Structures are given as C-alpha cells and as structure tokens.
C-alpha cells in the first residue's frame, strides 16, 4: 500500500515543472504508472483505495484521485455517503489541466453519474454541468456528455442546473482529429484541441446528437419561458446545414415548435433565415402544414379561425406531436398580441373598446366583462410584455382606459457609445474562436489535398499560367460549398 501511495503521489507540483513540454511528459508517465499500478494490484486495489483517498488530494493529484474513485464507484458501493461526498468534492475542485490526460477515465465517471443511479438526479445534473464547464470554461464545444446530461435535466425537471451550460454558444464539434503540435497541457489551446475523442474527454458524435441537443436546449428554454433563447436554439436546428437534399425528422419537429415559439415571441409568423437550404424549405412547407395554418390564423383579426384550426385537428393530433401544451399557450396568447398590436394604432383606448375589438382564441369570443380585460392587461403589464398603465379617471364621462407608453426616449451619446462598445467587444471576443476555426480548417484533409494539388500545378505547369486564376477560383468554390451553402 505504501508503494501505491508513492506512485499515486509521484506527480510533481506544477511549480516544479518548467514548461508545457515537461508537464506533458510528466503527466503521460504518471498516467501510465497509475494504470500499471491498478492492473498489478488487480482485485486488491479497491480495498486500499478507500484509505488512499484520504491521503491523495483531489486538487493536486487529480489523475490519481480519479483512478481511485473509479475503482470504488460501482454498484455495491454506490450509496456510501462518504464516497459520494468525495466524488462531488472531486468534480468541483479537480485540476482541469491534469484531467486532460485522463480523459477516458473522466468520461467514464461522468457517464456513471449521468446514468442516474449514483446521485439523486438533481445533484447528478448539477455536478456534471459544473464539471463540464470546469473542463472547458468557454463552453464552445459540444461533447458527447452534453446530450445525456441535458436529457436527464429535462426529464427530471432540473433545468435550472444546466442553464449555465446551455446558455453557452457552441461553435465546435468533435470530429476529425487535428494535427496539433502543442502539448495537451498548453493552457492556450482552444477547447477543440483537447476535448477530442483521442483524449477521451468526449466520444465521437453524430449529426443526430447535434440536432437532438439543440432541439432539447430549445425545449428547456421553452419550459423556462425564455422564448428568445428557445427560438434561437430551434432556429439552429431548422437551419442545420445539409448535404444534398433531405431533411431530418428532428428538423421538422424543431420547425413546428419554432413556428409556434416565433408567434409567442413576436406575434407574427417567423420567416426562415436565408441560411436554410432550399430543399429543406420545401419539406417544411409540406410537412409543417398544420402549423403553418395555425400561424396564418394567428395573424388574422378574428380568433374564430385560430380556434377552428386548432379544433379541427383535435387534441389527439397536437399531443401526438408533443405540442399540445405549447399550442394551448399560443391560443391563450392570441388575445394578448391583439391587444399589444393596438399600441401601434392607439395611444389611449378604453377597456370597453378593447373588449369589443379583441377576442380570446380559447373561446373564440370577446371576454365577457371589462374586469376580465383589466385583469388580462394588468397581467401583461406585470409580466413586462406591455409598456403601459391602466387609468381610471374619477371625473365623469371618461371610462377606464389603457395608456400605451412609448419608449421613444433616445439614448445619450455616452450610453449609445457604451452599448456599441459592448457589441464590438463581444465581436472581438470571437477572435480566438476564429483563430481556432481557421487552424482547424487549415489542417482539414480537403484543404490539404487542395494545397498539394496547387503546389503540384505550380511545379509542373508553368506553361499554363493563363489558366491558373480561373481554376483557382473554381477550386476555391468547391472547397467552400459545404460551409457557405445557405
């Protein structure tokens, strides 16, 4: 056991390692030694592990600590309070740099947690989300852990715990490996360089995972009533790049929800972004017909149409699509948008007039009393949906009415400059991502093949100089089609 301890504690402290290369070497040797140790001790290892955990510090010796934990976290031990405490302590404090070298072990631990038998679900979700963000604080890469984690969170209604994770903008996906010359330990590495299938921190993922993830993120935001974010997430699925013609069922499903969320968000039919593939657009037109009819009815002046669109297909249809709740919500929001649109026309309008000119899509008729109208409008004002006040003048002859306030106050020069600066900074912050993308594309096989061909042409065909610019252009287009195709 002493031998075990000496091996586990052998990894030097960061201050003793001169540079990234040294760290890289030391870490690799350490991982090998720990592996060997476990293999040699075989069945005895778990027995020591319990005591060894007291000696090993999870922050300084994350690799060793992880190995010990993994040996213990198995069904018979699952319920032990001290063990669980150790796991959570580890996940909250581990050294992300070390763990880059123990990726598969870490992934293994995460998967066990995500399966849900180790911790109560809410704890499992929170721990995993925190751990993932500790590994990659930028949150810009989609790993194979994202989907199971968010699914667990959604199903167990622990969405709050993953919000920090799903709010991140994802621009990288693990895939074809990079020819990265810098060692894994280099802290300047973009996440896409160390969160790779080779390092074990993520597995390879497929298209379906990506689509499912964004759809699920959209649904999480929907459940939280954060329509703008939900809309954006669903839009990512709707505009997912496709090769050739074709459209995934998930995309259609997202499109249906996207239409409804668009109605709730802006009160009008959303338009497909120009990046949607043509073939996909056509598929949406056919496959999302019922939803498109709902949209058209929503922007009409009479609630009757919307109500009948909903009722002709019936609860059964909508709940089969998993959209019954959402569509009910859309129906209940119809009148709100009608009232909201009145602000484009009126500056003050009586409750009485609102009652007669707007209808509820749930009943297809106007509300029965001014008090109901007042309650509805008060609700809208409280939610921040409507900028206005209800006034009940005491003098005679003037009925209770709504005053729509306009936010036409322009910003001061300083405020405006501040906002612009924020925007500029956010765009500037994309710099590292652009750099990483550039590096990644520069090492992609297609591009290399293209470069080699170009070089060959340079060497061989001096005589055909005139043809070059044209060919260059064509080649260039070929390379970019997959990326730029809208």
């Amino acid at each position, binding site marked *: 056991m002493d031998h075990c301890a000496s091996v586990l504690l052998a990894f030097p402290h960061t201050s003793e390692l001169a540079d990234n290369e040294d760290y890289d070497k030391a870490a690799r040797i350490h991982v090998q030694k720990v592996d060997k140790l476990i293999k040699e001790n075989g069945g005895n290892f778990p027995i020591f592990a319990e005591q060894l955990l007291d000696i090993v510090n999870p922050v300084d010796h994350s690799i060793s600590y992880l190995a010990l934990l993994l040996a213990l976290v198995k069904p018979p031990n699952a319920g032990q309070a001290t063990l669980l405490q150790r796991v959570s302590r580890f996940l909250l404090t581990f050294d992300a740099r070390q763990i880059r070298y123990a990726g598969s072990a870490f992934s293994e631990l995460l998967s066990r947690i995500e399966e849900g038998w180790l911790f109560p679900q809410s704890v499992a979700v929170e721990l995993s989300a925190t751990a993932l963000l500790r590994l990659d604080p930028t949150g810009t890469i989609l790993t194979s852990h994202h989907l199971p984690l968010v699914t667990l969170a959604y199903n167990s209604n622990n969405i709050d715990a993953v919000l920090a994770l799903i709010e991140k903008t994802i621009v990288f996906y693990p895939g074809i490996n990079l020819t990265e010359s810098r060692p894994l330990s280099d802290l300047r590495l973009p996440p896409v360089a160390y969160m790779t299938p080779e390092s074990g921190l993520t597995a390879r993922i497929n298209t379906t995972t990506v689509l499912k993830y964004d759809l699920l993120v959209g649904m999480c935001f929907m459940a939280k009533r954060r329509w703008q974010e939900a809309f954006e997430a669903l839009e990512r699925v709707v505009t997912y790049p*496709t090769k050739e013609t074709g459209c*995934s069922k998930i995309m259609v499903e997202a499109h249906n929800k996207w239409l409804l969320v668009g109605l709730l968000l802006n009160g009008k039919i959303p338009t497909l972004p120009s*990046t949607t593939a043509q073939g996909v657009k056509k598929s949406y037109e056919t496959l999302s017909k019922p939803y498109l009819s709902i949209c058209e009815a929503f922007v009409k002046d009479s609630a009757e149409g919307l109500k009948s669109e909903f009722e002709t297909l019936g609860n059964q249809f909508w709940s089969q699509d998993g959209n019954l709740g959402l569509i009910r919500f859309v129906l209940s929001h119809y009148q709100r948008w009608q009232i909201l649109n009145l602000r484009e026309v009126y*500056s003050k309008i*009586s409750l009485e007039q609102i009652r007669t000119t707007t209808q509820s899509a749930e009943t297809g008729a106007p509300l029965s009393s001014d008090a109901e109208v007042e309650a509805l409008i008060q609700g809208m004002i409280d939610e921040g949906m409507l900028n206005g006040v209800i006034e009940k003048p005491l003098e005679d002859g003037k009925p209770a009415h709504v005053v729509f306030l306009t936010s036409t106050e322009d910003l001061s020069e300083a405020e405006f400059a501040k906002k612009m600066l924020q925007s500029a900074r956010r765009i500037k912050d994309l710099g590292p991502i652009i750099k990483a993308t550039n590096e990644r594309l520069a090492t992609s096989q297609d591009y290399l093949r293209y470069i080699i061909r170009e070089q060959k042409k340079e060497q061989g065909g001096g005589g055909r100089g005139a043809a070059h610019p044209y060919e260059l252009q064509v080649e260039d287009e070929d390379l970019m089609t997959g990326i730029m195709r809208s």
Partner: protein
Amino acid sequence: MADPMMIYFTAVDNHGGIIVQGTPKFDLDLYIQNYKGRTRFDRLFLIGRSSVALCVDALKAAVAEAKRGRDVGRYREAVESLRLAAPNEPEATFDQAWIDVTETSNRNETHRLTTELKGYKNNLVKESIRMGNEDLGKHLESIGDLNGAGDSFNKMRPDVITPKQIMDVGKHLVRVSLQRREWSLTMAHLNKMGGVQLPDDDHTLQTYIKVAQGIAFLGQERFQEAAMSFLQADSEVGSSNYNEIASPNDVAVYGGLLALASMDRDSLQEKVLDNASFRTFLEREPHIRRAVTQFVNGRYSACIATIEEYRTDYMLDIYLQRHLPKIYGAIRSKCIIQYLIPFSRVKLDTMQAAFGTSEKPIEGELVDMIKAGTLDARINTIDGLVTVATPNPRLKMQREALETAQNYEKQAIDRLRRMGIAAADLEYKGQRRGGSVSNLMNSGPSFQTELSFDESMG
C-alpha cells in the same frame, strides 16, 4: 316594371357585376357621341348592366348599336339583357331575320376573304398578303371574333414595310387587346410602336400611344405611371385619332383622378395645373380641375366632396369602374395625411367633420390607414385626439446601428458554427436524391422526447 329590373340586377349581382344606384350627371346620347367603333357598344352595354337609372335607355341604344354592326353575338347579348330588364320594350324581341341574314353574310365574307388571302399567298406578293390579312382581321373584329382578328393582325407583321404600316398594325393590335382587356399584351404592342421613328405626325401618334398606355397601366393598377401617361397626351391632336379607345374628356378624368391619387401637391401643381397641354383637356371637365386646385390649396374636404359628386359617373366608365374604389380610397388617404401634416395633434371631432360621414366614422378609416402603414399616428379615444407621430431620426439611427451590430455578431457566430459542423463532417446527409416526402418522414432518424413540453409546463 320594377320587378323584372330587380330580377335582372340580382342576376348581374350574382355574376359579380357592379351595380350603380345613383343617377349620373352626363347625357347618354352626348356621352356616346364622343366615341366611334366597337367601344361604343362596350360602353353602352356596361352602362346598361350597371346603372339602375339608365339601364333601359342604355340597353336600347346598345341593341341599336349592335344592329348597325355585324356582330351577332353582341346583339344577342344586348337583347337578352333587355328582355330580362324590360320585356315590354319593342327592342326586346329577337329580330331573327336580321340575325339569319347577317350570319350568312358574315360567313360568306369570312370565306371570301380567306380564299382571297390564300390566293395572295400563292402569288407571294407581300403587299397583297398584308392587305389581305388586314381585311380579314378587320372583318373578324367586326363580327366579334377577337381571337381570330388578333391572329390575322399579327400575321401582318412580317409583311409591313413603311413606318406608317407598322403603326397601323400596332393600332389594330392595341385596339383588339384593349377590348380583350389584356393589359400586358397591350403594353407589349405599344412598346413596339414606340420604337418607330415618325417624322411629321409624331404628336398624333405619341398621344395615341400615351392614351392607350395610360389605360393599360390603369388596368394593371399602376396609377402613378398611368397618370404620367395621360398627362403627356397632347390636346392639339384631334380626338378622332384615339376616340376608338377614349375621348378627350376621359383623358382629363383619368389623368386628373390618377394624378390626385398618386402625386404630392408640388407635382400636382407642376404637372397638372401648370401643364399647358393638359389644361386644355381639363377645361372639358372643370370639376376635375377644381378638385385638383382644391387639393393643392389644402382644401381637402372640398376636394373629396367634389370628386364624390361625380362618383356615379365614373362608376359607369368602362375602364374606371373596377378601380374607382381604390383610386378614391387613395385620394382620401392622401387628403387625410396632408390634412394632418401641419398639426401635431388634431381632435377626432374636427376630423370627423372634415372627412367623416354618418355611416362611416373617421376612426375606423384612421385605424385601417395606421395599420396599413400609410399614416404614422396614434389615436387617443379617451381625449378624442389624433396624435401625429414625430419622427426621431436619432433614435432610429441608434436602433439601426445596434441592430446591425447585433446581426453581425449573430451571423458571425452562425458562420463559425457552420464551419465547425463542416470541419467535423457533421452535415445532415439526406436520403437518396429525389426521395419523396413520405420517404423522408419514415427514413429520417426519429426522435421522441420522453417528456414533452406539456408535462413540464404543468
């Protein structure tokens, strides 16, 4: 007599016809004297079918007009209508003998002309072929076979030589396509005519082209372009040059109304009132000139009142009828907008007095205009005010700038994401090319979320 009239107009209504109740100001005989050719019947028949007041007179005149010509189809149509509307009139019975005689002679004439044309074709004399086609075309037009007439006139094209002949072909074709209400075809023929250079009687032809073009634009509801066309007509050109399509009075009315509907005050002053040539046209219709002057002088309600007086007349015009509500609507909206310009707020009651009528309160109209985006104002029903929105260019600029920056950011991220997907080779690869929609449904990877939105909401 009221009863058959009722039945007749119910039938017209059912066929989507427009019925005009009021009594027009013009005199039917004087009105129709302004025209020649087939448009006379078309106009009379339209009045007969639309105007309650002039129905019988117009239909009787239409029957007489048809009988003067050789178009049996029109005669039948007119008599049939008259028989429904006023069965007791002597003209309401079919003159079978006339029909038989005319039909036979028409048939013989068609046969004769066709044979002659064949002969010319065999002789390969271009001039004769052209004239043969022209004669046949004219004949077919006069018996009501507009399709055939159009074909014949078109066949003249390869054999025309002088500019004069090109013009003649053009006029024939324009006339036929106008009768068939094929506006874009009319435009095409007119464009061909416009390209030809004529030395002397340029103005004559220009005026003909402008009038026909104006009508074609009007038919396509391109009001501004139509107005510009009519305004370029030359009043010195004799009406005989274009009275088979419109009269000088029509030019004044069309031009004036459409200009009112589509131009601002400065343009109206410059292009209508100060237009020496068009002024002469306007003298024939002084009330149109009055309306334009009133608009320019800012007396909007007077302007509307003036044109409203003549609504019935214009509803009985063959080309204006279908578009009049739109034109009047546009003029009204413009008046309301112009009326509001000098004020920051106006009492609803004042506006009601200026523009509203008892059956149509101004508020509804304002609401429609604001919704359509033609008017930027807010209504305050509590204090009875209309507040004109004051433009705030600074705010607009700021909003636009921030929006642009945001869009840029969003697009940049989206592009990066797409590159990321492409780099990881994760694009969605469709099924086989040309797979049908039903295939798509079944073959796409299926995804059922275990817990739907519904449950988590509850």
